[in-house]
């Protein structure tokens, strides 16, 4: 049990899909955050798409997913 033997039947390809699904799930959760919350600390007139932290996070997750997809 301690060695996760019960997951020995899971192939490397399936395991990779589990990781990619995790990134997708995190991405969805980030998108669900209220926009007001991710801009908190920036004055309303200074809020632009480039300081939207949701976009930053999605970009980072996309790069991460592409690395796992490639290797």
């Amino acid at each position, binding site marked *: 049990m301690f060695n996760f033997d019960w997951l020995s039947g899971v192939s*490397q390809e399936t395991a990779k899909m589990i990781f990619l699904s*995790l990134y997708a799930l995190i991405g969805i959760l980030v998108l669900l955050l209220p926009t007001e919350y991710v801009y908190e*600390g920036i004055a309303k007139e200074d809020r632009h798409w480039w300081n939207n932290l949701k976009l930053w*996070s999605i970009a980072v997750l996309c790069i*991460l997913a592409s690395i*796992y997809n490639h290797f």
Partner: protein
Amino acid sequence: MLAGIDYFIVIAYIIGMLLLGLYFKKFVNSSEDYFLGGKSLPFWAIGMSIVVSDIGALDFVGVSGQAYRYGISVGNFDWVGSVPAMLLAAFIFIPYFWRGGMYTIPEYLGRRYNQKVRTIASVTWILFFALDLGVLFWASAVLLNVLMGWPIWISIVATAGVVGLYTYFGGITAVIMTDVVQFVIMFIGGFALVFLSLYEVGGWDNMVDKIATMGPEYRNHFDIIQPQDTKSPFPWTGILFGLTFVMANAYMIGNQSIVQRCLTAKNEWHAKASMIFGSALKMFIPILVLFPGLMAVVVHPGLADGDQALPMMIKSILPPGLVGLMFAAFFAGLMSSVDSLLNSTATLFTKDIYEPFIKKGADDKHYLKVGQITTLVLLLIGVATSPISSDFPGIYVAIQTFMSYFQGPIFAILLLGIFWKRTTEWGGLSALVIGIGFAVYLNVFKEQFFTIEDPFLYISWWSFLLGFIINVVVSLLTKKHTEEQLKGLVFSSKILVENKKL
């Protein structure tokens, strides 16, 4: 090994760091300036500082060595082992700590659970950091001794003098701003080695083809996901459960030296952005530390000790001038780790031990002085204990193992503390004590329980799980906290939309 130009680069780097760090002395007028940079720093500086303090010279050598032996799966630590945890920290934990005006993670645990939990967590971190300090001083002295020919004790005193001076006077602002320069140097030195190594092996595709033909032991060298039954320390189950779910979160959310940097941000957006920016930079770290190890498989096949991979690559590939830059990058990694340890330990001691137990209610200048004196005392302890590393060569690994005992249980109580109102002080305390005890037990009897080479990822997961269960069970059996006690300490959807002040 170094040429004249290399000496010049290294010495110019050391003097430059000292002057830059001392420049920030003029910004320190209160304990908040010293420990939290007056809450005035921008996200980009904090993000770079998080990344550079996370990677030391020992990691450069160690990760390259592991990449030589196990392949690209070592990169999991900087990819899946960082990014998801940093996003969780950015959007959930950091805003709570930042809005609550906290200085330390144990301070949150003290408010959420009780003083005992705060003290246990704080003392454990202080012990770990103080021990680590001596090891890092020794490592930097060995580097200076081998490459510059300086005697060990002069090297130790030189490192302690330079880092100690700017950390003593400039506090965390000096630590973070010198980290920015160290980050740039580390990246320039690291990428120079990667590009020249790639040229040497005839490009990426050529390297992959060559390694693929080197025998069955290299069959999985380019598989980032390793099978569950691999003998390497990185099966995908350990990466998912131990690293992604536990160790990464415990490190990014529960590590004082990481979180304290985010608390220096000038506002909440910068605090969150620093973590996300840091996660983007983190994805480049494997290129710097892992790729040279992979390329060494082609350039220097059959090395008995994988940790020789990086030094061999530097020796055989880099021209004079770049060797000095690479050495400055090593030294930058060491200095950024040492200054982080000094400032974080001084913060933990002043805020979690001195203020509540030794002198309550003193004026702010007093605590500023205590923080500075603690930095000085830690320096002396670090210098005095550094020779232990030569008597016990495995001490660095032993310290890291000691930390892995702590990671699972600490993350269990942080997670439940912030997400579950019903968690009680007794639940947290028993989870911490029993969880750490269980991790120690699993490590002592690891041959009986585990089949892989070094099961630290599995130990983290199982000690986390037990800590989690103990916390839930004991909390349900003990008296719950009042709404007043929990105000501003437990996650509520309100924080996302309206609860700006906790």
